[in-house]
């Protein structure tokens, strides 16, 4: 003790101790530098990732935001009873049958009035009709069938402009290229300018994008059928994979004996989580369609296949959540005389619920974006009508994106990006819900 005390002043004056301290200093500096470098690498990695993400979002939103607006042409339509119901029968069935061209006549008449055309100017009429969607007459027809009281009245109707006119108004088809290479000719541009000046041609929110089914005309195409199909599939996945996955993992985690068989099952579950989803698609095609004879393109089959792909994810997440519940809870439960099942269902599972829900929602979000297995079971199809049950043919959001991406028209290009935005919005909402649920139910010990 005294020896050490007497040495201290010596070391202050410089001696072997000083050298030792400075050696520690050198080491410190190097370690600090290493840490700073590591931080810089980490920051750089995150920045690069963010830049890519921004570029991706930027390009998608930049290409897609225009699709949420659509060019419409408002025209006064005279719902002439003598044309629509020549025999006086105004029932929807009568409207839907009979000469289909009578609705084209209605549109032609109102276009003539809107453009103030001479009745004999047929070329002018056809040039004007070029601007209107070819689906206008069927649209008018179903509108009257839905509301026969329109017959005999006069009302302004918003017609869709064709996809090419829409692209032109939005500037994706440019006016400064030679006319022969342009899809919109000079005569059409003159008409567009005139209609725009009169206020008939205007941009409106594109509700059809969310409500319409597939169409070959970009202006009438929407993700409606795909949304419903995806919704049905998510329902099937939720109904099947949540109880199956949770029950399976509770058994494996809390009740199953630890032996070679359960080890094998555990290894298999982890392996299944890593199997490429296309394999599940092939399995679904072989088992659900070819063997069980379920209908092709049905969202039930899609849901079953996606259940298979999400089950491993849910089981792994649930088991991790159950493992995270401290053993003291189980011991206390058993200690006061609860049975094993009571302990698990009254104490362990409620505490593990935030983890289970998070795992399930992330599994669902994953399933929502899954494309490959759906291609195999016919969910990449041209489907116009809404599915009423999960057994009816439907598409899904990602397959709809895939199909639009292959269309040549400009208006489909922007719709592809718009559909991606819709899908991303759903994924974002689901992931936020997972975070909120976790925050709300989180318990700390």
């Amino acid at each position: 003790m005294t020896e050490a005390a007497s040495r201290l002043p010596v070391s202050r004056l410089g001696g072997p101790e000083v050298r030792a301290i400075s050696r520690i200093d050198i080491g410190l500096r190097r370690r600090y530098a290493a840490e700073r470098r590591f931080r810089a690498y980490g920051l750089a990695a995150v920045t690069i990732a963010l830049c890519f993400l921004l570029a991706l979002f930027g390009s998608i939103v930049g290409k897609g935001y225009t699709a949420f607006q659509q060019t419409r042409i408002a025209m006064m339509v005279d719902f002439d009873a003598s044309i629509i119901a020549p025999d006086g029968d105004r029932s929807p069935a009568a409207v839907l049958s009979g000469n289909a061209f009578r609705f084209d006549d209605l549109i032609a008449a109102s276009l003539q009035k809107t453009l103030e055309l001479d009745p004999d100017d047929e070329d002018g009429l056809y040039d004007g009709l070029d601007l209107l969607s070819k689906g206008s007459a069927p649209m008018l027809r179903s509108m009257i069938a839905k509301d026969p009281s329109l017959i005999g009245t006069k009302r302004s109707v918003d017609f869709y402009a064709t996809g090419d006119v829409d692209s032109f108004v939005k500037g994706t088809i440019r006016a400064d290229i030679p006319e022969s290479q342009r899809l919109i000719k000079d005569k059409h541009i003159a008409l567009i300018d005139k209609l725009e000046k009169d206020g008939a041609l205007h941009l409106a929110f594109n509700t059809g994008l969310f409500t319409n089914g597939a169409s070959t005309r970009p202006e009438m195409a929407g993700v409606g059928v795909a949304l419903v199909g995806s919704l049905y599939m998510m329902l099937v996945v939720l109904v099947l994979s949540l109880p199956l996955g949770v029950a399976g993992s509770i058994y494996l985690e809390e009740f199953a004996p630890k032996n070679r068989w359960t080890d094998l099952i555990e290894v298999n579950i982890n392996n299944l989580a890593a199997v490429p989803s296309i394999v599940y698609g092939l399995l679904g095609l072989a088992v659900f369609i070819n063997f069980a004879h379920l209908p092709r393109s049905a969202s039930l089959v899609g849901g079953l296949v996606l259940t298979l792909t999400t089950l491993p994810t849910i089981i792994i997440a649930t088991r991790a959540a159950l493992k995270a519940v401290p053993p003291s809870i189980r011991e206390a439960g058993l200690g006061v005389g609860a049975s094993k099942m009571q302990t698990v269902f009254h104490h362990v599972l409620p505490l593990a619920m935030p983890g289970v829900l998070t795992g399930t929602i992330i599994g669902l979000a994953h399933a929502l974006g899954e494309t490959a297995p759906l291609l195999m079971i016919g969910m990449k199809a041209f489907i116009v009508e809404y599915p009423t049950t999960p057994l009816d043919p439907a598409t899904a959001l990602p397959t709809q994106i895939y199909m639009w991406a292959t269309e040549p028209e400009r208006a489909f290009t922007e719709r592809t990006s718009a559909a991606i935005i819709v899908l991303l919005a759903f994924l974002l909402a689901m992931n936020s819900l997972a975070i909120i649920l976790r925050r709300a139910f989180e318990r700390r010990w």
Partner: protein
Amino acid sequence: MKFSTAASAIVLGLSATGTAALAAEQIHIAGSSTVLPYATIVAEAFAEANPNFKAPIVEGGGTGAGLKEFCKGVGDDTIDIADASRPIKAEELDACKAAGVTEVQEIRIGYDGIVFASDIKGPDFAYEPADWFNAIGAQVLKDGQLVDNPNAKWSDVKAGFPDWDIAAYIPGEKHGTREVFELNVLLAGCKATKAYDAFIASGLAKADAEKACAKVRKDGKAVDIDGEYNETLARIDSNKTGIGVFGLAFYENNKDKLKVATMSGISPSVETIAKGEYPVSRPLFFYVKKAHLGVVPGLKDYVEFFLADQMIGPRSPSVAKGLVPAPKSEREQVLADFQAGKTL
């Protein structure tokens, strides 16, 4: 455990309702992605004109995949129509017959033209099939000898072509277009350059010589595009000296980005293809299961609707989308054959 029993009961219940609700209510179509746009146009118009039938479901997937699905058998869970961008092969028809699809009706709907196009700002091209064979053939004739293709630039192929590195984006081997490309461009060019004779002289049998002619160089100058034409367009966007192979319809929609080349002096257009002047074109088909005609509601009406002038005639929306219409007499013959119940 209770949960999993309940869940499996749900699965069984759902499968049971599935089998019960299986009566085919609507037409199901799958096949060639070239025919897909026309099939969807007709399906949409058919649904609009016949509100009492459900709209047909149209899938793409390719000619081969469509015919495979078609030939699985007869019944509610099989497709009714297969779209095809080439005639059905004998072995496919045999597979069909073995699976019980004994009566297949062939419907020819029109033609498809394949165009060669480059970036709009580049020079004009006028090709002969021989130029393409010399540019992308695996083995070509050089000074009377068969050698591995030495041409690196278009100017090596023919004087007058620009000094561009050869970069050709051609349809991949699973594309229906590939066969027409091989037959009407590569093989024709092979024969024109006498390379075919050289292959025969080197001891190859006729069929093997034809195969050797259709072989494409593998050194990266010819790139197979297995996806859609959009991908080919993206390649040309990024490599302005690339030449791509497109469908006529796709080119018509992207005239502001692409410049089309002539083949054997003929510019591709609906007129030149319909007249048979433009050399690179092919017929398009769909195949119908005769056994389904009375069973699936609207199937017969759909086929007849498809063959109407309003759908595939010269002024129809299909033609606006790029289909090359068949002459009127041919269309009438196809309709008459269908109505007479002619099978393959």
